[in-house]
């Protein structure tokens, strides 16, 4: 399985995730959240930023079900789901992830037939990665 190859902008997201916290970058001056993280605010050009805790609740914005050919570790679990989750408290922040049965379950642990655009999900964490469960 691929682990996140982080950069200076993204590292805090993964540090918080490793502690079981979902936080998104927001401007330190105008407060506008932004994703993916980047050095300055596209709205006010401020270089000040903070990492704002979010509720971890969201809705499925879209999803796919990949089938092979895939990288071997993923092919073993295919078909699995990949979702884009729109965060309830910051709707333009959308996170790519997987909906699983329970925290720590494999990518193929949920029947893709149970997924719908608009379905409510909440974040859980396993191995430093956010995952999502149906709520």
């Amino acid at each position, binding site marked *: 399985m691929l682990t996140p*190859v982080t950069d200076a902008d993204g590292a805090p997201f993964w540090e918080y995730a490793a502690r079981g916290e979902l936080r998104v970058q927001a401007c330190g001056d105008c407060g506008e959240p932004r994703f993916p993280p980047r050095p300055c605010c596209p709205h006010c050009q401020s270089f000040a930023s903070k990492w704002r805790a979010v509720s971890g609740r969201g809705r499925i914005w879209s999803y*796919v079900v990949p089938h092979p050919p895939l990288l071997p570790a993923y092919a073993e679990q295919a078909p699995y789901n990949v979702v884009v989750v729109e965060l309830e408290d910051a709707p333009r922040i959308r996170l790519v992830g997987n909906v699983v049965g329970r925290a720590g379950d494999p990518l193929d642990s949920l029947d893709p037939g149970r997924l719908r655009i608009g379905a409510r999900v909440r974040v859980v964490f396993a191995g430093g990665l956010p995952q999502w469960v149906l709520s």
Partner: protein
Amino acid sequence: MAAAGLKDATAVVGIGQTSFARHLPEDEKTLACRAVLAALDDAGIAPGEVDALASYTMEETDEVELAKAVGFGDLTFFSKVGYGGGGSCATVAHLAAAIASGQASVGVAWRSRKRGSGPRPWTNTTVQLPTPAQWTRPFGLLRPADEIAMLARRYMHEYGATRDHLFNVALACRNRANQNPAAVMYERPLTREMYMTARWISEPLCLFDNCLETDGALACVVVGRERARDCRQRPVYVHSAAQGLPAQHHGMVNYWNDDPLTGPAWSTARQLWKHADLTPDDVDVAQIYDAFTALVPLSLEGYGFCGRGEGGAFTEGGAIEIGGRLPLNTSGGGLSEAYVHGFNLITEGVKQLRGTSTAQVPGAATCLVTAGEGVPTSALLLRN
């Protein structure tokens, strides 16, 4: 004084290509040389007269290798455009700008690629940039097909587009390929039954929603309007050309702005039509970048052939077949002729306006050619 601009200042006067196949024995450099020399021969221009080059950043035959192999003269302009298939039309646009502004006089654009027998780029996990891959790849969103399928499902959900609409795109391309002996899928008809029962690649996209994997090379020659009149072939004028990287765009994973379903086609189209004497109603035939079927409805909307959300319905009733409102991808496109990062769409646009396509639209006088939607892109409006 108003700038002279690009409008009809340059023309494509030569096109060349190798054969297309899943596997060709020669290497990319050799294929590039063959396509470029074929295009120059088509134009009746000697290699020593070439002074400008343009290609893609993903092109692996560099200018030095090509120039010394085929015997170009002194080059005074050379550029490479990024973002994979988004750069196709921009290669011609850069040559047109260089020639119109006097930096060069004979330009060659090309693409040579062994994507059929060579590696799939997404399998190389070491060259992926950390952003945005850190936000997508650990979760198994690995391939361009997965990234575009995510937008496709949202598009189908918001606008009621269906798999039948995507099939219409796949079928139109396949039907044209069945008329084109050079197409990889020349002798392979497609049926709705085949499409609806095909294996999934990334739901909601199936095998036939994905382009081919092809070895091949293509090239074209661009010169100024005056010179074009003396060439061997009927000139095909670059009427308008544009690139587009919209504000807050994120590439193929365009999930993080206010409106992910309006991509680079929209901003490219605004620039393209602003400098044209023509409107979408005047376009006789179009070559729309088709790495995935789902890019076509989005592009039809973006370039103004229909309203927002109407791209799926636009494909109904034979509208994109020969004789329809907008025949498209008349060589078979990336889905059924060859996938060479969209360069075959440029050469097919030229063939239509010469009247030499294997699926000729009678009297075609204007052709829109687009590069990859879903990445920073480009487009050409050609006329004869």
